[in-house]
């Protein structure tokens, strides 16, 4: 069995195991996520493979990233879930859904078959609905309901797009699974009917764009991030958004392979700019810390979409690096905010303040994560945004006109929020406690990784990045 299959199977079995045998579920969850690091590393070391699950230079780093963030979230969850006070039934559904979500997400990242990809994303949606709504408070139920309805809507549109692509490919591909294989479709795209490809891509973009949190169908994202438990917010931002973005990129690659079809870049740039600008303005008016980070995810997905829309080796590399850096920093910020909200007993920004003074390791970690998210050097996003600006200046200088102010406004909003949260006089703790390694370890690991990919990207990874960017149009 390939490493990819093993990875998905591991999480699937884990989901079944945790559903059936909930004793010591949090620890078991952590062990499963730790075990998953092995096949993920194997995939990263030697991407390849045939069949439905197929790792390549594009998705292998994302699989590793997902495994790392998943492990971090499970570690964080170990302590955090105690503070939730869940009963046994909810603990069981929470942990089983966590494993199920990871399985679906890895399958979505690795799948070459668009049908399987869609099934995986839908399964991931169902699992995350369970996790988002686990608090059972009215606000959590509303968030889960909105998530469910909007994403159900989105993936329905996406499936229509996939069906249209299959229709476009039917005359050129042999009967059977090949008709939905992204690689086969891409190879045959040049001969397909461009009108069908256009129709399919538009639905794919809107559909998976909903899952990726792109404006205009973004409104589930802040609520889902704010109302679910913190580890869920971390995996939603760090894993799910990337998987949805990769799904869009697969569609883009197919359509771009046909000369006569519309050029998908313009759509991505338009949606990306809309997301960036709307989020940049909205970020200033946030009062809830986790919602703030949710809106920041919309912003960063927008930035990545712009980068992929610009395309070319430079734009694609910037987009990929941005997705990596965002996943690491955003999950780090969620770990820190989650811990802080637990300490203060409240996740409103008014209630959290002066973390750097009262809880230095936690507070300074949050300072770094948010500064990184704001695009300050030296963490990953600075580099990718720099590359993006360079790519834009070369390919489409007009994009710079809205892009740079957008980056500035959003970055300043995050810095402003960071100042309120971390610097200044501390607010009183509701439940004082030491900074536990279960929070600090994933937090600082992610920060260190973000630093590494920015300053000293190891040569094999850099090669993968270049190769992955080359796989995209």
């Amino acid at each position: 069995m390939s490493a990819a299959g093993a990875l998905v199977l591991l999480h699937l079995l884990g989901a079944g195991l945790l559903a059936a045998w909930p004793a010591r579920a949090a620890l078991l969850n952590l062990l499963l996520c730790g075990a998953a690091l092995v096949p993920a590393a194997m995939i990263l070391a030697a991407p390849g493979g045939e069949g439905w699950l197929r790792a390549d230079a594009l998705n292998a780093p994302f699989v590793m990233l997902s495994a790392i963030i998943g492990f971090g979230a499970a570690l964080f969850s170990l302590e955090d879930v105690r503070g939730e006070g869940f009963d046994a039934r909810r603990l069981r559904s929470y942990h089983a859904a966590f494993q199920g979500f990871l399985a679906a997400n890895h399958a979505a990242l690795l799948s070459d078959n668009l049908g399987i990809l869609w099934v995986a994303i839908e399964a991931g949606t169902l699992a995350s609905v369970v996790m988002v709504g686990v608090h059972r408070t009215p606000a959590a139920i509303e968030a889960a309901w909105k998530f469910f309805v909007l994403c159900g809507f989105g993936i329905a549109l996406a499936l229509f797009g996939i069906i249209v692509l299959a229709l476009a490919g039917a005359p050129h591909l042999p009967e059977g699974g090949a008709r939905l294989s992204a690689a086969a479709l891409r190879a045959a795209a040049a001969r397909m009917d461009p009108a069908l490809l256009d129709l399919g891509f538009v639905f794919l973009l809107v559909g998976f764009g909903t899952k990726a949190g792109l404006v205009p169908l973004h409104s589930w994202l802040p609520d889902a991030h704010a109302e679910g438990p913190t580890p869920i917010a971390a995996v939603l931002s760090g894993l799910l958004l990337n998987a949805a973005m990769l799904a869009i990129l697969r569609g883009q690659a197919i359509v771009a392979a046909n000369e006569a079809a519309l050029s998908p870049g313009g759509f991505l740039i338009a949606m990306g700019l809309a997301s960036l600008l709307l989020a940049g303005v909205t970020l200033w008016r946030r009062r809830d810390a986790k919602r703030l980070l949710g809106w920041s995810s919309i912003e960063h997905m927008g930035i990545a979409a712009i980068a992929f829309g610009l395309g070319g080796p430079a734009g694609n590399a910037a987009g990929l690096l941005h997705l990596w850096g965002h996943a690491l920093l955003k999950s780090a910020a969620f770990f820190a905010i989650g811990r802080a909200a637990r300490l203060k007993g409240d996740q409103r920004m008014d209630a959290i303040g002066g973390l750097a003074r009262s809880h230095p390791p936690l507070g300074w970690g949050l300072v770094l994560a948010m500064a990184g998210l704001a695009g300050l050097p030296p963490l990953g996003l600075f580099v990718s945004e720099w590359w993006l600006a360079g790519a834009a200046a070369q390919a489409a200088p007009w994009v710079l006109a809205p892009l740079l102010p957008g980056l500035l406004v959003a970055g300043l909003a995050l810095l402003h929020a960071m100042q309120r949260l971390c610097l200044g006089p501390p607010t009183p703790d509701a439940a004082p406690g030491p900074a536990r390694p279960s929070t600090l370890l994933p937090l600082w690991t992610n920060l260190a990784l973000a630093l590494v990919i920015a300053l000293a990207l190891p040569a094999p990874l850099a090669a993968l990045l270049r190769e992955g960017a080359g796989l995209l149009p």
Partner: protein
Amino acid sequence: MTGLGELGYDVAHLLGGAMLLVSFVLLAQRRLEAVTGALALQGVLLALAAAWQGHVQGAGQLLLTAGIALAAKGVGIPLVLRRMAAALPPAQRADAPGPLAPVMLGAVALVALAFLLAVPATRGAPVLARVDIAIALAILLLGALMMVTRRGALAQVAGLLTMENGLILAAVGVAGMPLVVEISTAGLVLVVAVIAGVFARQLGERFGAQDTALLDRHRGERR
């Protein structure tokens, strides 16, 4: 290939058109029981359309799809939804879609949009697939419209189900579409409905109402 005026085409067109009509009925229905009835009818029509496509294309697996559609969408899900609707207090069994005329005008506009999009775009495709794609797109958009215009949780689930019906209609129309998708779709839709049911029940217990508008008050923060 079957063409205009031939039986294979005409029956496909007839069944698709009937499904589209049921979508309109769904949009206009006030009572939840009538909504579930219309859903069941659409499910049965979908099953017939799938079976017919299976017959015309000579694809046996589509008959299986038809069977699943008949069992799940024609019978199972509507029954469950009806039971859930019946459990509601009488005042909430009717879900007013608001003023009907704008909704209907919007629906007609969406259908026109769907046809104007799909008919030219599918020029190169086989005729049978083109009919199904165009009508499926219209059904999909009408389902979306229903989800937008309804506040009740059950009615929104019904809108989602209509969208799925449209999807399956599109999938069966494409000759040689691998079967995997249909079976998993059918299975997943069931799960979707079950989860939605759990939700609806929770909402019902917590608020004594299914109206998702009530939830707006509990929004953590105004956007």
